[in-house]
Every structure is written in structure tokens, then in C-alpha cells.
């Protein structure tokens, strides 16, 4: 593959080093699922990386083409199991746009609250897993999971399932939220606030953590855009691109929040971006709660079997990992002709080579962790 050995004359009697290839994954705790990368190393330095994906491919797109629009919702949960609400949202919004349906106001506010809560829970998961990747402490993992569990409990109360919610419907919601929903959200936010503060103190101000992450895995703004990166991975490189701001969906144009960007595009910035985004999510949810009023959660005239006219739509939303897009092509009828899931992690992973080559082997794990990949979403 690559030759890191300089052309030295044989009589120099210098040590000649040979490139070594090591295989990392698919069963490796730091690959966050079944991801394999083949590292070519020269001593401690990485000279080449070949990522291998596809171990989790289940043909979700093909399956969705054989199901009617309502059945597809459950499959979205299974592609993005850490941010299910965000995944469902892209799908139901795509169907709504094709079928020319509009969800009532209350349903949209509830969707916004749940999606932002899901961003919190997903980022908590990141904080915990990332702490373990960096290898400084296992403490972060247990703390982060405790906080995530409070949010997951709330989701269970709303949707009836801990992970595979299937709660959003084209047109609105499956059923009304529990009576104490608002109080429970406020309670959960209070716990999340404490959790973010704890984890922030535990990690951001930790000297070892900073030494491990600052200046590591640099990705420039131009490269990030060229590779199609999105979400915190792109924003950490200093590009203020956020679909919630640029092309507001739901009621994101009616709430105030800041788009968080980084300066250096290194691992620490990607971490910090997510932590700061969590504060913004809390800010958004609080404003949503103020605006939440009683009302219908589905349109008055919702057909039992949803049919769409022929057409196509590419619906994108800002999920915790970046742009989660649904490209839906319809020939008419009750099922999609083609459904393409645009995975944020797939595009982010492409940039992995740029970030790891030239760095240390130990940093490759940290860089991969900082992308916060979900292999189910990558492979679909």
C-alpha cells in the first residue's frame, strides 16, 4: 500500500521499518457496533485507513418499498435507534408533503419537544461512550446512562416502548400524550441540567481529557463540506449549517436558539459542540412548553389508508448526528416506489480518512468516537 520507508542506501545500516496492517473490528468495543477499519501503521503513526461497513445491512429501503406508509414508520426506528423520534419525523414529514397533509399545531409542538429530548438523550449517550473511548474514566459512562435513562423513562410513558416508539404518524401523533406530560418534561429537564453540568465538569475541565482531544483529528471546513459531513461534525469545523435554522421545519422559526459552531474542527470542538447543543435543546423545549396548548393531534379528515399522488420529495431534518434525509418517490398508491434514507453517519464516516491519517493509532479510536456513529444508520 503506502511506503513510509524512506529510500535510504543499503549501506547506511539504518533500521528499516515495515508497514504493519492491523485490523480493528468488527467486534471491538470502541467501534460502536460492527464497524471494521484496517489501519496501516508505521510505528505508532497511521499511514492509511480503509473503513469497511455493511455488517448491519438489512435492506431497510427495499423493505419499506413493500410496505404501506404507516408500516414504514417502525422501520425508521430501527435504522436510527438512538434518535428514533428524529428519524420518524423525517419519514412522516416526507409522507405528509407528498400527501399534502398538515399536522395540527399541538402535534407539531409535541413533536418538537420529543425530538429535542431525543437529541438530549442521544448526546448523553455520546458523552458516556466518548468518555470510555478516551479511556480516562468509566465514571462518565455510568453517569451519562443514568441521565439518559430519565429521558428514556419519559419516552416510555409517552410511546409505550422504551426504544422502538413508532409514535409519530403521517398527519400527527398516534395518541395523546399522558396528562402529566408537561410536568414530567420539566422534571426531566431539571435532571438533564444537573447531568450536563456534572458531565461537563467531569470531562471538559479534565486536563487529561483535553490533552487527549485538543488538536487531534483536525477536519477543515472545506474538507467537511466536500465530504458531505453534517451535524456537529460539520459545525465543529466552523460551518454554521443547521437545517433547523436554514430551512425551518415544525416551528423552529418561532423559537430562539443559537447555532453552535467550533473553531478548530478537532475532536475537542466536536465534543464541545454537542455539550453546548444540549443547552440549546433545553432552551428550545422550554419555549415549546410555553406554547403547548390543548387541541387536536390529527387532522379532522385523515384517511384510514393513506395514498399519495405521484411525485417525489426529499425531506431533511437536523437529527443529533446531522442531516437525516428521506428521499421518497411515489407512483401513486399506498406504498413508496423508492425510499432512500440519507444517512448522516455514512457521509461523516467518509471523512474519517482525512482525520486519522498522520495521527497516532490511539487517536484513531478517539477520532472515531468523536463522530458518534450509529452503525444501524450507516448500513440501514
Amino acid at each position, binding site marked *: 500500500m503506502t511506503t513510509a520507508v524512506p529510500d535510504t542506501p543499503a549501506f547506511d545500516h539504518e533500521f528499516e521499518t515495515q508497514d504493519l496492517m492491523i485490523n480493528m473490528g468488527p467486534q471491538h468495543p470502541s467501534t460502536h457496533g460492527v464497524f471494521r477499519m484496517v489501519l496501516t501503521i508505521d510505528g505508532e503513526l497511521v499511514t492509511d485507513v480503509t473503513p469497511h461497513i455493511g455488517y448491519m445491512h438489512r435492506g431497510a429501503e427495499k423493505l419499506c418499498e413493500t410496505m404501506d406508509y404507516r408500516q414504514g414508520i417502525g422501520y425508521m426506528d430501527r435504522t436510527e435507534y438512538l434518535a428514533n423520534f428524529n428519524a420518524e419525523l423525517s419519514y412522516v414529514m416526507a409522507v405528509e408533503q407528498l400527501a399534502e397533509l398538515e399536522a395540527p399545531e399541538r402535534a407539531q409542538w409535541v413533536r418538537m419537544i420529543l425530538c429535542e429530548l431525543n437529541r438530549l438523550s442521544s448526546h448523553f449517550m455520546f458523552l458516556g461512550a466518548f468518555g470510555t473511548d478516551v479511556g480516562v474514566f468509566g465514571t462518565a459512562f455510568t453517569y451519562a446512562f443514568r441521565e439518559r435513562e430519565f429521558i428514556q423513562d419519559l419516552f416510555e410513558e409517552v410511546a409505550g416502548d422504551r426504544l422502538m416508539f413508532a409514535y409519530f404518524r403521517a398527519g400527527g401523533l398516534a395518541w395523546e400524550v399522558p396528562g402529566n406530560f408537561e410536568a414530567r418534561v420539566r422534571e426531566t429537564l431539571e435532571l438533564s441540567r444537573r447531568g450536563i453540568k456534572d458531565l461537563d465538569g467531569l470531562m471538559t475541565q479534565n486536563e487529561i481529557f483535553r490533552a487527549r482531544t485538543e488538536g487531534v483529528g483536525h477536519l477543515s471546513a472545506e474538507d467537511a*463540506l466536500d*465530504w*458531505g459531513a453534517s451535524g456537529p461534525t460539520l459545525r465543529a469545523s466552523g460551518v454554521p449549517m443547521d437545517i433547523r435554522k436554514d*430551512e425551518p421545519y415544525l416551528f423552529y422559526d418561532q423559537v430562539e436558539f443559537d447555532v453552535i459552531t467550533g473553531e478548530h474542527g478537532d475532536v475537542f470542538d466536536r465534543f464541545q459542540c454537542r455539550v453546548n447543543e444540549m443547552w440549546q435543546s433545553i432552551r428550545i423545549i422550554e419555549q415549546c412548553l410555553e406554547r403547548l396548548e390543548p387541541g387536536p393531534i390529527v387532522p379532522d379528515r385523515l384517511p384510514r389508508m393513506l395514498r399519495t399522488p405521484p411525485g417525489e*420529495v*426529499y425531506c431533511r431534518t437536523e437529527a443529533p448526528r446531522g442531516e437525516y434525509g428521506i428521499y421518497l*418517490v411515489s407512483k401513486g398508491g399506498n406504498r413508496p*416506489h423508492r425510499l432512500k434514507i*440519507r444517512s448522516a453517519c455514512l457521509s461523516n*464516516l467518509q471523512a474519517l480518512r482525512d482525520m486519522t491519517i498522520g495521527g497516532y493509532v490511539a487517536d484513531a479510536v478517539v477520532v472515531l468516537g468523536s463522530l458518534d456513529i450509529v452503525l444501524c444508520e450507516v448500513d440501514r
Partner: protein
Amino acid sequence: MTNGDADGLEGTIWPQVDACLAGITADPERGAQDLIVTIPKDEIIRGLRALKGNADLAFDYLRCLSGVDWEDEGIDIVYHLYSSTRKLNLTVKTRLPNEDLSVDTATTVWRAANWLERETAEMFGVRFEGHPDPRMLLLPDDMDDTFPLRKEHPLAEIEVLQGEGIAYGEGVQP
């Protein structure tokens, strides 16, 4: 440069796109959300490069690249573009006839096209000429003779393949 004043394109970015694609055959259509432009496959890369390089449009971000099987009519390759500075969206399409399922690679325009083209290639049996790394992406290496996302490939086929190859093994009756 056709249909310059086609109906139903008011308020879209078609005038800028039309000016940018001077000398390239482009057929506009209003989509549910974004403008859709269809370009013949011989000119597609020239068109995409012009759209990226244009100062007013600057489509520097490839959101998505996918294929759509239209059975007898061929396969569409669809590019979803975005401009990070101008905040504009555009869908570009090209139709590949069934006799010649090949198109030039877009990796020379955006590197983001790399894995997306590998996926489209293995799923639809489309060749991307000049692709720097034309390996399989999601499917196993020996699955290069069947294309799962084509409409002619029924879902049951997969079950049959799995039943024969994996679940029952050689000589074992199901």
C-alpha cells in the same frame, strides 16, 4: 437551455440555473419542494461542475446521491445539491437507458459522492466510470451478480438465497 419560460417555474431559481447551464441541455420541472433539473448523461458532470463553480449558486454540498429504478424506462441517478453559502437547494437528475447503465463519476466534483456511488452501483448495477474505489460497500463481495434495489429483484428472492445458502447448508432438507 430548453423551456426557458416554462410554466410553473416562477419564484424558483431556474433563471440562475439556466444561465449557469448555458450550452448544456437542461429540462426544468417544479418539484414538491425544490427545483428539479434533468440533464442528459453525457453532459451531467459538466453540468454539475458548472453548478458548483457558479458564483451565484455555489452548490458546494452534495446532500444525497441515489438511484431510482423505472423498470423499462431505465434508471435515474438523482443528485440532491445544497449551497452552504447561498442556502439554495436543487435536485439534478439523469436518466440511464437499460442498454447502457453507466455514467461518469461525480467524485471529481464532490468527494462526498464516493461511498454514495459505490452503494448505488452495487444496489442497481450501475457503472460509475472513473470511480477511484469501485469496491462493494454494503453488500458482500460475492453478491455482484444480483442487484437488490432493482424492481425485478423480489423480496422473496433474498429469503430463498438465504434459505439455500445459509440456513440449511448442503444436503440438508428444509
